[in-house]
């Protein structure tokens, strides 16, 4: 069990990591989700012991390891760049952590072959990393992390530099590969979809602070505040500020959206509503949608989906529509919002007012 107790990191008087409490259990996969510069790497460095926290303590299995140097902590780390020893063969690269640990030749050989088999590197054991593809180089780095049998495995955007196809493939395999070892996994990513695919737990990060930590689906479905909801949305979250009055949400006194059942408990007054782009539809699909008039801006077609940018009462929204829709610009259209998925936040604090009851 890895515990960060009130850990913070300041560099030149500026917070890189704000005071943070976080407990990661053995055998779990933990995603650090946040945009670039949110502090994912800084937090990982603190976990690993590459950096010393400015304040607070780090505990592993109850023991205080705050000042312990990284090489004594049995940590493995994989980076966005493909980091391997350039002059050594793949075999020697995988063997390197065990050689340093002073294991005997038989064990090393067995472990290297096992890891190579697992990561499909067997045919390339004699090559040097520079003569491998990006995916194979990263597999080599992953194999090094596996044979180390570390207590804590840190993966810092390990798939970001790989092409789409390889990324899908490795992402699927990663949880399986590491599942058996019983270590703590920490996986940093900027992509909400990656967090959802990996499952496990997610810590959402924003400007050096953990805004929420919990099961990935819980964080996704019930964000504690607007910032977390925004981190967990790609394309960006749609928001609108309005006022609740009785059975409807009003804009400038005009009722726009009827209050759905799950938001019935919130008080009258100003509120910020938010929803994911895929909860907006071109056609009324079920009995829970509210028609809204919006003006079309741009539509982008990405594979089998379309991102349709809209202007609704001066707010920019995005609709994620299935299929290819080539919609004319600057036209009034009616879009349909599934109000069961609306999230409501306090307008001044950004805190969630009620949990959304429905599955996303």
């Amino acid at each position, binding site marked *: 069990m890895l515990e960060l107790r009130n850990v913070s990191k300041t560099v030149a008087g500026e917070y890189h990591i704000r005071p943070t409490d976080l407990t990661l259990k053995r055998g779990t996969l933990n995603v650090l989700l946040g945009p670039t510069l949110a502090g994912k790497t800084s937090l990982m460095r603190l976990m*690993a012991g*590459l950096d010393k926290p400015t304040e607070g303590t780090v505990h592993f299995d109850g023991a205080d390891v705050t000042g312990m140097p*990284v*090489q*004594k902590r049995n*940590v*493995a*780390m994989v*980076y966005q*760049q493909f*980091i391997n*020893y*350039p*002059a*050594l063969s793949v075999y020697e690269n995988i063997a*390197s*952590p065990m050689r*340093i*640990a002073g294991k005997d030749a038989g064990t090393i050989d067995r472990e290297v072959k096992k890891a190579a088999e697992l990561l499909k590197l067997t045919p390339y054991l004699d090559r*040097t990393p*520079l*003569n491998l593809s990006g995916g194979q180089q990263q597999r080599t780095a992953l194999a*090094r992390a596996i044979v*180390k049998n570390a207590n804590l495995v840190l993966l810092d955007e390990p798939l970001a530099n790989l092409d789409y196809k390889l990324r899908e493939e490795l992402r699927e395999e990663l949880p399986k590969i590491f599942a058996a070892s019983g270590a703590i996994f920490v996986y940093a990513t900027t992509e909400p979809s990656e967090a959802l695919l990996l499952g496990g737990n997610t810590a959402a990060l924003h400007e050096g602070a953990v805004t929420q930590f919990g099961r990935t689906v819980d964080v996704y479905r019930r964000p504690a505040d607007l910032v977390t909801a925004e981190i967990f949305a790609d394309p960006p979250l749609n928001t609108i500020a309005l006022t609740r009055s009785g059975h409807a949400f009003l804009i400038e006194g005009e009722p726009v959206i009827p209050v759905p059942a799950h938001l019935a408990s919130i008080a009258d007054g100003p509120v910020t509503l938010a929803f994911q782009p895929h909860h907006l539809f071109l056609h009324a699909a079920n009995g829970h949608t509210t028609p809204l008039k919006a003006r079309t801006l741009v539509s982008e077609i990405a594979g089998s989906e379309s991102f349709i940018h809209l202007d609704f009462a001066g707010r920019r929204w995005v609709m994620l529509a299935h299929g290819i829709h080539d919609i004319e610009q600057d036209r009034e259209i009616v879009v349909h919002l599934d109000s069961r998925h609306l999230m409501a936040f306090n307008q001044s604090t950004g805190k969630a007012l009620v949990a959304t009851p429905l599955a996303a």
Partner: protein
Amino acid sequence: MEKTWNNKAWFLVLPVLLLVAFSAVIPLMTVVNYSVQDTFGNNQFFWAGTDWFVEILTSPRFWDALWRNLIFSAVILAIEVPLGILIALNMPKHGLGVPVCLVLMALPLLIPWNVVGTIWQVFGRVDIGLLGYFLNSLGISYNYTQNPTHAWATVIVMDVWHWTSLVVLLCYAGLVSIPDAYYQAARIDGASRWSVFRYIQLPKMKRVLLIAVLLRFMDSFMIYTEPFVVTGGGPGNSTTFLSIDLVKMAIGQFDLGPAAAMSIIYFLIILLLSWVFYTVMTQSDAEQK
């Protein structure tokens, strides 16, 4: 579409052609011309065939100078390359120390060769030189104008002082291009300082080291100005390297034929050794692939 030839393009290439012709091809051909003929002035030439080449290759004077030059280059490389790497490894990578170190390192490289020679010539003098006087007052009878060993030591120390910076700067450039994540990964692995050097830094510096070795070899094999200024090739012939010998032969004795033949042999030796260095060093790279 039919290809059209535009002969005007030759005018654009002409300046370069002329430059290369006058700076390289014509002088080289003149040397070849001299090396196979004999002349007594008045623009009168007599065919000499390979006589001059035979004369040079059978003269002990040439072999002695060649041998001295090889030893000199070997010693220079053996000192400057490891020393350069060592200094580069210990140079700061961040902060104010970086520009300070870089300027300090670049200083010797900015001084003209003959000035370097003069500095050391004066520096080492027994009567007024700081180094010479100091060593002698310590009881070491140092005198580079009389003792061949002292002359050699002076020339080598001078070259190390002058040119190690080049190796340092090249290695430093190689070192700073290594991403920080490599060092982090090594730290996490618990790799020793030596392992980091042997398995990360050295392989990453390989290309710049090749350039450093080639440049230092070629330059040290062609060294002329500094030993000429400091020792004039003496005492005796002890620091007469190939180029000094060549100048003596061509300008001092006015033996144009043998000097031309020696120039060509000299040129071919440098070409051959550079090729060997290059092949050996890139070969080990290819083997890994």
